[in-house]
């Protein structure tokens, strides 16, 4: 029962997206460093208990995003470049910002109000850390 | 392929073992009763009829009807054997499970009568009745292997059991049979021999038809 990743069927997002996110997490935290060989698609599918086709799609998307590289006959590897982790975090921030922008439009929060609220939250976090 | 067929027949014989041994034991029980006067002889006859008729119900019921009803056939047919061969194995096993004890009991009776110097007048009619019971088995087997109806199976069993009395009554009221029974010598009259021959033919015809029919099926579930 010790799977590398957990796919939740209660999560509304497609399974391949969940898998991609968890793989990216590993890469961003340098658990899977640059050049690390990913498990084979079938081995990962058996381990995580999810269909082969879902893993294939996740790997394909990750390759398209430049996060991993697949070498024909050799397997898939975490892409070289120290900024992969950084790039992923950047992508995460971008995704969150998009949601914030959409919600603020929905609720009618002005950019100035948004800015003020973000400052407050950042100050709180900085205080907690010290 | 033959090995798989043999495994299937062996499996069914393994399950039918208790019935096979049981019927021979029942027949053995009849032996001491023979020396206990006319009531003893009557009881022995009843036991022999049981030994020849009851396995019928158990063999066909267990090997064919129950297995089919409880879908055990889905398990056996998932193994590397064709539906036709599995059906053939079933028919062979059932026939063997009945015929082997039946033959043992028949030969045993003749040997016993010879060794014990018992009055052999009973033997011709006894043989006739014994082959009649074989015919009943063939009929029950044919019915269970050609029809899925449990109601038909039950009906045929009841009809067979009831017909035993009619058989005994009809033939024992014929002088050609009843006259020679008390004697110490077996009277194999042409009449008796003809009846036995006809009965054997009927039985073999039923078995042949059954074996032919099961291999021609196309739907096995």
């Amino acid at each position, binding site marked *: *029962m010790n799977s590398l990743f957990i*796919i939740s*069927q209660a999560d*509304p*997002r*497609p*399974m*391949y997206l969940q898998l991609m996110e968890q793989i990216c997490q590993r890469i961003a935290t340098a658990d899977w460093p640059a050049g690390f060989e990913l498990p084979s698609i*079938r*081995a990962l*599918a*058996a381990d995580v*208990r*999810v*269909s*082969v*086709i*879902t893993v294939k*799609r996740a790997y394909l998307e990750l390759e398209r995003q430049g996060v991993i590289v697949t070498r024909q006959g050799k397997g898939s590897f975490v892409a070289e470049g120290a900024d992969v982790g950084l790039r992923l975090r950047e992508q995460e921030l971008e995704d969150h910002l998009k949601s914030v922008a959409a919600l603020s439009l929905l609720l009618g929060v002005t950019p100035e109000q948004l800015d003020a609220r973000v400052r407050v939250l950042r100050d709180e976090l900085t205080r907690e850390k010290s | *392929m033959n090995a*798989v067929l043999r*495994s*299937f027949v062996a*499996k069914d014989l393994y*399950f039918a073992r208790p019935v096979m041994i049981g019927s021979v034991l029942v027949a053995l029980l009849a032996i001491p009763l023979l020396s206990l006067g006319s009531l003893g002889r009557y009881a022995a006859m009843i036991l022999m009829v049981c030994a020849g008729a009851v396995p019928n119900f158990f063999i066909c019921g267990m090997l064919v009807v129950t297995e089919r009803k*409880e*879908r*055990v056939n*889905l*398990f056996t*047919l*998932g*193994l*590397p*054997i*064709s*539906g036709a*061969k599995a059906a053939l194995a079933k028919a062979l096993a059932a026939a063997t499970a009945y015929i082997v004890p039946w033959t043992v009991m028949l030969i045993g009776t003749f040997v016993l009568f010879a060794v014990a110097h018992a009055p052999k007048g009973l033997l011709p009619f006894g043989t006739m009745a014994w082959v009649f019971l074989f015919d009943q088995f063939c009929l029950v087997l044919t019915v269970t292997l050609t029809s899925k109806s449990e109601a038909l199976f039950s009906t045929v069993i009841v009809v067979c059991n009831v017909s035993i009395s009619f058989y005994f009554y009809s033939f024992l009221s014929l002088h050609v049979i009843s006259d020679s029974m008390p004697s110490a010598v077996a009277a194999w009259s042409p009449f008796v021999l003809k009846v036995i021959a006809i009965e054997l033919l009927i039985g073999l015809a039923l078995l042949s038809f059954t074996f032919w029919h099961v291999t021609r099926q*196309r*739907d*096995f*579930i």
Partner: protein
Amino acid sequence: MSAPLIELEGVEKSYPYFRLEGVRLRLEPGQVMGFIGPNGAGKSTTIRILMGLIAQDRGEVRVMGCAMPREQAVAKRDIGFVSEEMRLYGMASLDWHMRFVASVVPSWDSAYAELLLKRFDLHRDQRTKTLSHGQRMKAMMLLALARRPRLLVLDEPMTGLDPVARQELLSELMQVVSDEQRSVLFSSHHTQDVELISDQIAFIDRGRIIESTDKEVFLDRWRRMHAEVPSGKSLPWLPGVVDVTSSGRVAVITTKAFTNDLPAFYEQAGATIREIQHMTLEEIFVAEVMSSRKENHA
């Protein structure tokens, strides 16, 4: 590309109250196919036809290259079959069954059988008639898996299994396809399990195959859109839309042909799309069956 393990083409079978029509199915090596459909749709019949247990009235059936039902004895050497209706010999022990199967199937792997005994928590000397439903399913799975078959055909294998047993079974099934030459076909009401491990989904209703596609593609085509429709405006009926449920100004649109520019069509008609949701296989299943039944009554 190796030959498909299962090929059904134009298969038909008639019964007094039911007909299987134009069934077409293909299963490639290394794939898991989930076979779903309502009760009485023809799942078991199709499975029995591909196992050679029933002869089709028309059409071609080939399993691992063997024409069925004629060459079923050869094909079944490499097929492990478990059906929810199946029973074992009640008076015999699990051990007897293991020895019987081993004697008839040369590919029996006793070491793996021992492992499965432990993993499934089964007792070899136990008479099979004393097994609970779940234990019996596990026992039959053991008897099928330990044969190391190239193809596993399972008819409702999850029914009656507790969640732990289901997880164990799913693990074993995924182990089978970790070998890219082996495949699994399973029919199930548990759409969750089908959604999780299937590579291909085949959807059958009333004797006809409605869909047979790649799972990801299939799931991706379906969406549920929540829209606000101002009064006076009506929604255009676009192809692929299976259902529109409105109450007041709120409408829920279910479509099986979603594309990224679909919301734009609705926005042009004056509606506002509030939310676009993916659908679970169970929701798709129900939507598909309901819509095809509505069509038949129209």
